[in-house]
């Protein structure tokens, strides 16, 4: 968060870190009534650290800046530092409290306000020698790091540009029609990948429960629109996904289900299930519906819950199983997916959800696993052993993700699976 607009003559790397250091040097001779507050937004979870969130948070201090001797510095790592002189603490408390409330779902803001172990905000009484020196050290460290961070950011930007995987122009209405056309005519069969979901029983080894079939988006993008980021607009992407569904159905219908292979799952839009293409699909795999699991995205379910219930009833009656995908530990805090009465629920794991602060969230999953005897909970996007461990501790037995891929490969090579 370098405030380039206000300091047009400064280089990006100097940033607010440099300005703050200069400010501190000027302050050194007259420290009466001066103090500083360091708000560590850099320690927020990445989903809460989006630039516009930080921008909104920093606006909470605007009235202090306008009415008192207070200056806000926005650090490159997204931390905020407020340097004040004789600003009424109550007013400042109020502003900080507001920012903390904005991030109330974040473990960082959970710590008790003003307590010793509160990581959210640290106060420095600059009139006091020791605090002044500590603060100066913090600022100097930040300045050194800032140069490095900026360099890394530049490197990452260049790397992203070179590796065009999911970069590129945003998807918009101007290019959607063309992409739509390419998608309808492009070959997709060779882009279909699969990822196993494994079941780990108590005391037993693992076994593949089913395999999810999907189209690799980065490969698809390279083929139909190398310059456009297909995932940049979620709503327009859903539009493309409906078309992709129909292409996928044709591919999967050719799958040889007569082999005693694993069950497979397929991500579909709810509207697809009611389409003519799905009827064709159903006719061609009729004898094997028991091996098929249809995955629906939670967002799609909320578009029209009645349509979901209709589709679920229809599928289950025909012998398919239904899975709800796209949940996160945060989703579960706000609604109980049990009411959707699906056969499987997939919750996406994320490393931010490990750690002690989020016990409450984990309890939510645990309660869900216990309450749904028939329903199977899958922990998705599992990328480490510790994720599987936490999952098992919560009673989860089904896992999917990069780590599971490696695990399965190892099991295959040892002949376990």
């Amino acid at each position, binding site marked *: 968060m370098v405030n380039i607009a206000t300091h047009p003559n400064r280089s990006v790397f100097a940033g607010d870190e440099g300005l703050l250091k200069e400010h501190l040097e000027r302050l050194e001779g007259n420290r009466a009534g001066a103090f500083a507050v360091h708000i560590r937004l850099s320690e927020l979870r990445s989903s809460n650290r989006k630039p516009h969130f930080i921008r909104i948070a920093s606006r909470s201090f605007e009235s202090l800046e306008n009415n008192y001797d207070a200056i806000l510095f926005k650090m490159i790592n997204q931390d905020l530092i407020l340097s004040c002189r004789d600003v009424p603490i109550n007013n400042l408390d109020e502003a900080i409290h507001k920012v903390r409330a904005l991030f109330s*779902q974040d473990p960082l803001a959970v710590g008790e306000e003003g307590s010793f172990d509160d990581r959210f905000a640290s106060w420095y009484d600059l009139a006091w020698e020791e605090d002044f020196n500590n603060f100066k050290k913090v600022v100097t460290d930040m300045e050194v790091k800032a140069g490095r961070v900026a360099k890394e950011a530049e490197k990452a930007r260049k790397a992203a540009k070179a590796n065009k995987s999911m970069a590129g122009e945003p998807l918009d209405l101007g290019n959607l029609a063309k992409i739509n056309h390419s998608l309808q005519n492009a070959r997709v069969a060779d882009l279909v990948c699969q990822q196993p979901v494994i079941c780990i029983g108590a005391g037993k080894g693992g076994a593949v429960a089913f395999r999810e079939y999907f189209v690799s988006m980065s490969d698809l993008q390279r083929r139909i629109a190398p310059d456009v980021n297909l995932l940049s607009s979620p709503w327009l992407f859903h539009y493309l996904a409906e078309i992709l569904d129909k292409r996928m159905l044709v591919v999967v219908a050719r799958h040889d289900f007569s082999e005693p292979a694993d069950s497979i799952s397929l991500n579909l839009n709810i509207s697809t299930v009611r389409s003519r293409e799905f009827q064709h699909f159903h006719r061609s795999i009729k004898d094997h519906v028991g091996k098929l699991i249809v995955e629906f995205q939670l967002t799609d379910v909320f578009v029209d819950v009645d349509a979901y219930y209709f589709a679920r009833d229809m599928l289950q009656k025909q012998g398919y199983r239904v899975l709800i995908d796209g949940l*996160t530990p945060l989703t579960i805090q*706000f609604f109980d997916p049990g*009411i959707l009465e699906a056969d499987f629920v997939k919750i996406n794991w994320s490393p931010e959800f490990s750690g002690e602060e989020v016990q409450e969230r984990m309890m939510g999953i645990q309660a869900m696993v216990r309450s749904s005897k028939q329903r199977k909970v899958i922990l998705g996007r599992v990328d480490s052993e510790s994720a599987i461990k936490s999952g098992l501790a919560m009673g989860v037995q089904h896992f999917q993700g990069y780590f599971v891929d490696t695990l399965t490969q190892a099991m295959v090579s040892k002949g376990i699976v």
Partner: protein
Amino acid sequence: MAPGVDNKHLPSQENLLLDYLRRLEDKRAGRRAVYIMLSGLKPFNRREQHIRAASSSFESLIQSRHGQLFCLKNSDLFFAFKAEATPHAEAVVRKIRFLFSDDPFLEEENTDKRRFVTWHDMEKDYDALLLKVQDAVEAEHKRATDVHSSRQDARTTLKARQEQGEPLTPDILWRVEKALGSADLSNLVRRQFVCSFDSKHRPEPFFSELFISIADLRETVIPGVNVTSNQWLFQHLTKTLDRRMLAMLGKTDHITISGDISFNLNVETLVSDEFLAFDDNITAGRRGTMIIELQMMDIFANLSAFVFARKFVQDKGYRVCIDGLNRHTIEMIGRKSLEADILKIAWNSELLNSGGEVVRSKLRRSIEKVGKHKTILCRVDSREAVNFGRAAGAMLFQGRYIESLIAEDNRRKELLRLRRRIERSRSF
């Protein structure tokens, strides 16, 4: 008032009026006409029931065969009548004028060149009138042919239309999006009230929702295309509508609105620069009168942004309303109900058909759980809907049926006021 797609092939009122004038050419002596420019009124005075109230005032004159009324596409009225009915026609026009007396257009009438009411003598003004009507017909015709010439495959088009308008394609939406960027949408803004009922079953406004009429947008910007036919493309379009709505609300002189208001936004919009700029320009007091409506689907698609944005706008003083709930989703989000201030459950006649008592008691429990003072039954289109809602514990209602009750109540008040006036003038 705008005729729908279905009667496009019927002669338009403009055409009928032209035909009428032509037939009148040699019988124009002793005939007069009055042109009432309802199109000059502010949008909130130009809702369907207003136009209906104004046009129905001529009913007794029409029935007694003293005149003929034409309702033009732009909402303007043209009434042609026999000279002997002049006093009666004048009384009707006075009444209409009275109905809209609080509209800025009538207040500025003396300084503005455009007049709300213009009287014509058919004999003297015939040629000028004919010209004026011909222009109107031409404009209407041009609009219709523009639509037609852009269509190649008439059969496919008609077929799709029969199935609720031409489907939305990315290309069409792109055109709409571009058109929206520059169009003045203030005349597409509609207002619908959320009401409770007093002891005499009369509606009492709680707040009103402002929205851009999608049906009229479709007619204005891209006639015959069903803008809502693809959920995802439509959802994308709402981002543009959000920006236009904020721009309009930001200009206080543009829409003069009384009472608390609500409007729909995307979660993404709440954390955008456009919203911050809007928020900067309105006074702290006004924030308290505003309710931001968010869609359930949008919330769950951006949950962490929602959690952040809800807190942010509530802190600022806005209230947050969750729109688009039904009997299932209200149960899903439970007692905490996403910590919103207000919830809207959509009425659907299915509620009556699918299980009756069971559904009602389930809904009743949900409403009790979240609080009946913060739950609105919306899309109410019949008396049965209100009865069902009341039995399920709802106290707040919104929808077409409520609008008709308001119009009825306004007519009653209007008559009452008129009667008092007459009585007062008699007593002098």
